[in-house]
């Protein structure tokens, strides 16, 4: 029998209901595990053991009074350092927010609290979610639990690594261009980015507002579905949030939907730059679906090759403006060197931001400049609509799309940190999904010969989460990759 900390939400919910365990026991198991392995993994920037146990006790108290709040009641969920938790540090792994404490909860955190979840720790990330390896954290480098020399992916590397290492039962991340799905693939866990607007962005520190989404990391598709159900919904505090359309009882729906489905495979996603072991792994996954009676349709996403450049125009433009508020005036780091308004701005930002953040602010400022706006930002928005059009056309013919999540498995630390462009290509298969605002999930689909996890990406229609979960669940049921755990 596996340790409590490697169990799923669904399993623990049953045990809790049966009185076989308690939230305090689960939380303590997770705390002990984190204390034992986080020195190697370095997934957490900080955690508050006392507060976690206090929440766990409250959960056990509710349960003893017969007032359990549901499947998530008492489950420790780790939180990425870009989501606001009341009275917890909120640093986005940046020096510029060192010592900043949030006075409010993000809407997704509030919703998890209402479902009884134990809000657990602050998880490492690339500074302001800019990166694909978590090496851009200003505080520490997180390791991949499957290979401590390798990166966990990013930007939600801490969320993926903590879950894979058993330091949480589930975690939250954010996904702007692949920041949930790519690390999920590299760490061998499930990671999901919902339809844009399905989860409120209130309390998510904005990187690129039109692309950012909160999403879950979980051990199984079912667990991800449970977390999604708890967090989704229109929020009066986020004008871009949308009331869900279609089925939302994901966790029960996914077991009832059995296919067969029409599944699209875009040829553009298997070309240059893909690691041969990943290519054959995903082809094998496609074959599996075919063997189950699914119709496999070759589809075209002709504008997907433009996704990376379009993304780096739109995301950096929005970031250059979103990050302007970190100026040393009202909160966060203020340079000791500053003596007037201008130097408060320039010195605080100069000292507070890391290289990648500066690079993107400069890029974003450039593409919005007068004289360049039309050529870059406006044109990028037009191409963005073409990319969405490609998907809409494809979804006329298919129920979901199968692609690799990442072109390569986890790479070694430092391997790409000097070459931003090669780092940017880590997200080549995930970025177009954010530009189109549609949902996608990465699920474990096998391992390389050297034992590194591989992820299969399943892309759904806008608000087509129920189908997407069902397709993913079917694969998971037919394989045993999801419950593999690293040796630590």
């Amino acid at each position: 029998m596996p340790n409590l900390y490697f169990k799923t939400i669904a399993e623990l919910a049953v045990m809790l209901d049966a009185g076989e365990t308690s939230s305090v026991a689960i939380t303590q198991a997770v705390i002990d595990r984190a204390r034992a392995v986080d020195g190697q993994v370095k997934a957490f920037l900080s955690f508050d053991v006392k507060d976690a146990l206090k929440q766990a006790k409250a959960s056990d108290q509710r349960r003893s009074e017969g007032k359990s709040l549901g499947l998530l009641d008492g489950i420790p969920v780790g939180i990425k350092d870009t989501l606001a938790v009341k009275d917890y540090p909120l640093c986005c792994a940046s020096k510029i927010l060192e010592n900043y404490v949030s006075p409010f909860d993000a809407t997704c955190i509030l919703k998890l609290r209402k479902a009884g979840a134990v809000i657990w720790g602050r998880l490492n990330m690339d500074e302001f979610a800019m990166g694909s390896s978590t090496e851009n954290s200003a505080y520490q480098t997180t390791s991949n639990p499957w290979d401590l020399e390798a990166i966990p992916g990013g930007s939600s590397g801490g969320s993926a690594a903590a879950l894979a290492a058993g330091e949480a039962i589930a975690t939250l991340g954010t996904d702007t261009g692949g920041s949930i799905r790519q690390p999920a693939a590299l760490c061998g866990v499930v990671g999901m980015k919902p339809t844009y607007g399905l989860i409120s962005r209130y309390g998510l520190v904005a990187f690129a507002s039109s692309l950012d989404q909160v999403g879950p990391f979980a051990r199984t598709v079912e667990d991800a579905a449970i977390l999604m159900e708890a967090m989704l919904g229109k929020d009066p505090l986020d004008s871009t949030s949308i009331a869900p359309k279609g089925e939302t009882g994901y966790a029960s729906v996914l077991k009832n939907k059995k296919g067969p489905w029409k599944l699209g495979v875009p040829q553009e996603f298997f070309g240059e730059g893909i690691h041969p072991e990943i290519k054959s792994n995903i082809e094998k996954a496609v074959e599996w679906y075919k063997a189950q009676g699914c119709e496999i349709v070759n589809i075209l996403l002709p504008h997907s090759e433009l996704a990376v450049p379009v993304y780096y125009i739109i995301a950096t433009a929005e970031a250059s403006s979103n990050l302007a508020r970190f100026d040393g005036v009202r909160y966060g780091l203020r340079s000791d060197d500053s003596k007037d308004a201008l130097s408060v701005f320039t010195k605080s930002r100069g000292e507070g931001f890391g290289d990648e953040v500066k690079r993107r602010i400069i890029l974003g400022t450039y593409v919005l400049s007068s004289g360049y706006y039309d050529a870059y930002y406006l044109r990028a928005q037009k191409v963005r609509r073409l990319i969405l059009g490609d998907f809409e056309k494809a979804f006329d013919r298919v129920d979901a799309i199968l692609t690799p999540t990442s072109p390569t498995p986890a790479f070694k630390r430092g391997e790409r940190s000097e070459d931003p462009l090669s780092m940017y290509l880590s997200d080549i298969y995930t970025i177009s999904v954010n530009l189109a605002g549609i949902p996608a999930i990465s699920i474990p689909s096998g391992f390389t010969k050297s034992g590194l996890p591989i992820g299969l990406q399943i892309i759904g229609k806008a608000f087509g989460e129920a189908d997407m979960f069902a397709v993913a669940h079917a694969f998971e049921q037919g394989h045993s990759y999801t419950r593999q755990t690293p040796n630590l």
Partner: protein
Amino acid sequence: MKYEVVIGLEIHVQIKTRTKMFTAAPYVYGAPPNTLTDAVVLGLPGSLPVLNHTAIEQCTKLGLMLNCEIAKECKWDRKNYFYPDSPKNYQLTQNEEPLCAGGKLEIELPGPSRNIEGEHRWVALNRIHLEEDPGKLTHGPFETTIDFNRAGVPLAEIVTEPDLFSSTEAVAFLNCLRNAIVYAGISDCDMEKGQMRCDANVSLRVSGSEKLGTRSEMKNLNSISNVKAAIEYEVLRQTEILEQGGSIVQETRRWDVESAQSFSLRSKEDAHDYRYFPDPDLMPVQMDSSRVAELKAELPERPLDKQRRYQKDLGLPFTITSVICVNRDLSEFFENALKTYYAPKQIANYIANDLLRELSSVSDYGESAHCVRQSMLTPSHIAILAKIIDEGVISKQIGKEVFVEMFQTGLMPDLIVERKGLSQSDDISEIESLCRQAISGNVKAVSQYKEGNEKALNALKGPVMKATKGKANPKILDQILKKLIDAQ
């Protein structure tokens, strides 16, 4: 060479709403610094703006009042610039598509004297858009403090075409604009409280030329007299430069009240590149055309339309309409009084003379017209007063006394007359005996009257009125005096 001055104004008006433009934080003038803030106002990480629909409605009303075209969609742009009073270092504004396009305002220029109506003309507007107010900086000798109370207050920016041709016209425009806005209940436009602020673009051209000259923009004009002084200063400065063969530099200048001079702030070359782009946090709002029609139907009669109507239909002179029509409370007071007793001229006179005199005697600020709502006097007080005078119950003379009494006590005029026994005396025998005394006491006046000097009779009426404390019915008194003298 003779030059013509061309002026365009940009007026910022704080729109009266209970809460700020993008958050539920309240706004009231004069609260202790930084007490009217919240996460959104301070731009805390993770906060998002949510639109206050009242601000849009109020600005729509303003646009309709000023004959603008109302946009089909209300969109938001970010104006990016770093300044310590700007919490996000970008301002939410409407760059591409203002809520209100075009428009015009009828203005009344000063006449040759205060009692003679001046010329009217229409001034063309370019646009009105909504934006958020920044905080307020206060510069001390050693430090600058920031108050974010004002930050996020809805501002309407009204931009005129270069369609004003003297400082007098600019002043007339501002006065008429203020009247219209206060009338519609959109803002109190108190310039001392920063509720209305003005920038002026001033340029000169050779008289008769169509082409606009190079302009300078005068900032920080926080009273109408400053607008006048700054424009006049600028006209002299530019004339001097042009006459010496120089050319005007396009620049922004700051008006300094103390020295009554303007100073260059920055030239065109130093102008900001605001890197406008559509705000990704706020969705465009579709304007409901039926609601716009409703708002249009609810607009009050414009002040100058009312003035025309009072002159034409009620036969009121300019000296009266110019006082009553500039203030909506006064004109409504007047119209309500007419509903009780239709005597436009008498009632208008009471309002324009007696009421305003009494109000200003109790007002600390000389803004007498504003306190008419607070006064104990109601429209029926004045209507009934006019009625009992017309009915001969009291004389006009006594009416003045009753007016003061009712203003101070709030008692109805008929009650005052009854309690104080002020009704006119029709006691012919008493009046006759007093008249005889008057005639015998002033032989000179009697002979003058007999020689045809009608006015000489007044010298005889005086002592009678004095003896009756003004209660003698003037008509009866007149008849008796004439009868007695004729009988001599």
